[in-house]
């Protein structure tokens, strides 16, 4: 007779194989599209797909504007990390409110969904109108334009980060709320009857349960914030630009020989995003996304 544990292992292996077969078409499509795009960008950045002239393997795309590329990388990381942390914190707070509150939950959910439906372009424009030195907030507060902090286009990307955090916190909140579901309500009651006060319920039950969804949604926010163009373009300063703004400017400029530099900028952004995914996905698994 097959021992129970071995039978379980066989069943699990069978389920995994079945799952792999089911997702295979989607994986093939994604790898084909994304792989082709990344391959083309990498090849361009290395001088193998020049718009004019002969292909020549070279790292010039990365070295020609090394200083700008470094500054753009720092700016992009600053924006993405700050926006992600803020969105995660606000999103988790909203999710906590939704799963704990008995009344008014629908209103909070409706507000979150409404925020998600607003395009980033509109959000960025509205943020600019609200936070610039001649914006609505300045007028309502009565602070003179000269004394108003440089929230838009200033040294620190306040407005860019705030806009991204505002929109993406709603996304994080809904993902985390959906992941908690009814299970949290049941486990919260268990923790209560075992003696957990509200703070312990949050720390020992809600947070560990929300962690996989929080980590994976934060990864999406980070990658999106790293790659977003319109928000940083509308609300950020002229120099240093974040990577997507720089890549777009170089790619659409009149100097067609700058294409490898544009591609190199995109390769750096893609590399950062893939690195973030490589770090976070094992963490998501360790946090128990498969439980």
């Amino acid at each position, binding site marked *: 007779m097959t021992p129970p544990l071995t039978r379980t292992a066989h069943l699990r292996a069978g389920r995994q194989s079945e799952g792999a077969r089911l997702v295979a078409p989607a994986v093939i499509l994604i790898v084909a599209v994304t792989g082709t795009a990344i391959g083309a960008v990498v090849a361009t950045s290395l001088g193998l797909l020049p718009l004019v002239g002969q292909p020549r393997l070279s790292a010039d795309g990365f070295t020609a504007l090394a200083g700008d590329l470094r500054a753009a990388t720092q700016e992009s990381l600053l924006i993405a990390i700050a926006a992600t942390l803020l969105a995660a914190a606000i999103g988790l707070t909203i999710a906590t409110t939704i799963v704990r509150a008995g009344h008014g939950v629908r209103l909070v959910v409706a507000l979150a969904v409404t925020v998600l439906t607003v395009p980033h372009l509109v959000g960025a424009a509205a943020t600019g109108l609200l936070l610039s030195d001649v914006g609505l907030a300045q007028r309502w507060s009565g602070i003179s334009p000269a004394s108003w902090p440089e929230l838009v286009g200033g040294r620190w990307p306040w407005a860019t980060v705030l806009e991204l955090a505002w929109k993406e916190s709603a996304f994080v909140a809904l993902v985390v709320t959906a992941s908690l579901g009814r299970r949290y309500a*049941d*486990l919260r*009651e*268990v*923790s*209560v*009857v*075992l*003696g*957990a*006060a509200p703070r*312990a319920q949050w720390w*020992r*039950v809600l947070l*560990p*349960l929300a*962690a996989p969804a929080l980590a994976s949604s934060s990864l999406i926010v980070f990658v999106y914030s790293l790659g977003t163009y319109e928000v940083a373009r509308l609300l950020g300063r002229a120099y240093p630009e974040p990577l997507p703004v720089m890549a777009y400017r170089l790619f659409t400029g009149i100097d067609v020989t700058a294409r490898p530099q544009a591609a190199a900028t995109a390769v750096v952004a893609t590399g950062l995003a893939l690195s973030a995914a490589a770090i976070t996905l094992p963490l998501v698994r360790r*946090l*128990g996304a498969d*439980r």
Partner: protein
Amino acid sequence: MTAALTLSGISHRHPGAAQPTLAGIDLEVQDGQMLAVLGPSGSGKTTLLRVAAGLEQPEAGDVLLDGTSVLDVAPERRDLTVMFQKPHLFPHLSVLDNVAFADRLRGQSRSQSRATAQRYLDLVHLGDLGPRRPRALSGGQEQRVALARALAATRRVMLLDEPFSALDNHLRTSMHQLLVEVRAALDPTVVLVTHDLDEAALADRVAVLVEGRIEHCDTIQTLYTAPKTLAVARLVGGFNELPGVVRSGVHHSILGAAALPTSLAADGPAVLLARKEGLALTEPHTTGTATGLVVEVRQSGPHQDVIVEMASSRPVAATRLTVEVRLGTTLRPGDRTGVVLPGPEGLWVVSGASPQVAERSSTSMLTTR
């Protein structure tokens, strides 16, 4: 002696509900005692536990622990815990850390709480599964861990909300045995909510809850032999009901006169209750027996139930009796048989009920048509 847990005049109504879920519940559980709350689905059993635990607020009444009201005490600070119908183990914790959860909340170190948890895991015979994650456990193992976790909380009173109802018969029996072992080892004060009579039989006393009211609270033996109301009799099952009238210590029904124990001699309308295993079959038309027609022979566990339609002079009241017999009866539908009622010691009456009561019941073993 002050009871460990007292529920006094508890009433509860769910928001928007026309009828109360609980209506004036009074219950006491003494220290070290186990009380089963038995009732059909929707009778308010779980709500009663949730009110006691503080997870629901009652409309009226009080919850007392050792004589002190805890109605205004938050559930996490009440000295009782609940084991729910589903195990609800924390998926992010190992089995050992699930059991150690309450101690960690009390501020004990990880190693201290794990050492204590290990003892409770040993108690439920799962001592070697501590490092596993809950998803690697079977349903029965999960319930054992949930029991260990509730015990490790070391609360004054433990409330069990149909904890074994989702398990198969074999596992349920082993959990019942485990509960007996745990009671012998720790002597906890327990309230067990169940709809299973076998499970209720584990308790010292059984409170029967029907439509939000306690109809009867006594030992399981009393419930089987002397139910206070028809509702209790029907919940316990196995009774034949014979509507009739008591006059001078004798019950008169369509089957004739049946002498009652002297303690049940109050005159008036009453339903005679006779357990199916208390009746016997005999040759038809034997002196002193009623004769009827076998209409069905039904398998009932290790026995057989013979349903006999009794002959009656009144055309509106053909009566069916269920008689439990050993396996291997040769009776078949269409056969005639005699039915012998037990003596006074095997009969019970529920006074005040009119024949119409029985007619309305679809669960009654005896039907009139």
